[in-house]
């Protein structure tokens, strides 16, 4: 399960909307071992493509070093799919290289009709497991409607 604050989810969605039709990508860092995604770091998509993303290598070094200095790790690695569903592609699976991260996918394919789809997965040793997304308000309350536990957040 991924537990994530409302404002962080909103910021991820805003990033995906901003970069649409290119894929957006980024990280949410949190204290090592905490499983708490706390600090959003939107990254530039060095590919600037509607179907592929890649962190710029020097930007990635800077962000990874910063996390190391702060005793953080990448708790969430997110990116958007702009014309397909919010499900990891074969490419996503083959390049997934942070075994402890939650891989969050946002689909902006229906961006004109409604809210983007946000779903989360574990990708370990080539295997994808979808997980529940639990959105928490800043006050610490759980806000979770009946739809939210089905397939991530269908409408945000």
């Amino acid at each position, binding site marked *: 399960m991924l537990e994530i604050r409302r404002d962080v989810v909103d910021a991820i969605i805003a990033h995906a909307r901003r970069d649409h039709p290119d*894929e957006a*990508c980024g*990280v949410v860092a949190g204290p090592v071992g905490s499983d708490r995604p706390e600090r959003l770091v939107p*990254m530039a998509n060095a*590919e600037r*493509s509607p*179907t*592929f*993303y*890649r*962190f710029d*290598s*020097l930007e*990635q*070094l800077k962000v*990874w*070093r910063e996390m190391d200095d702060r005793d953080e*790790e990448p708790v969430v*690695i997110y*990116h958007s*799919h*702009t*014309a*397909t569903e919010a499900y*990891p*592609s*074969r*490419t*996503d699976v083959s*390049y*997934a*290289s*942070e*075994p*402890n991260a939650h891989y969050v996918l946002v689909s902006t394919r229906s961006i004109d009709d409604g809210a983007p789809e946000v779903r989360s997965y574990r990708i370990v040793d080539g295997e994808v497991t979808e997980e529940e997304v639990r959105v928490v308000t800043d006050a610490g309350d759980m806000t979770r409607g009946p739809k939210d536990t089905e397939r991530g957040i269908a409408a945000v």
Partner: protein
Amino acid sequence: MSIEVRIPTIMRQYTGGEKAVDGAGDTIAAVIDDLESRHPGLRERLVDNGGLRRFVNVYLNDEDVRFLDGLKTPVADGDSVTVLPAVAGGSAR
């Protein structure tokens, strides 16, 4: 001669869980060969067909060796090498 090599989580299985190991060599390739002698299997994660793997980033101090001389990039005592798997993907199959 000592070069610190920082190893990403996904490759620590080759280093007994260590996040940094020491290596020696006068080029990136030599340092990788040196590490392989003590941490077998590590080289294959970094090198493919005689070149650096496309989706693995290797940095010498603050620079990506792709923009230097790749595997032939010279290395000096006290330098630091960092390995990070590229973060990439997308909907294209």
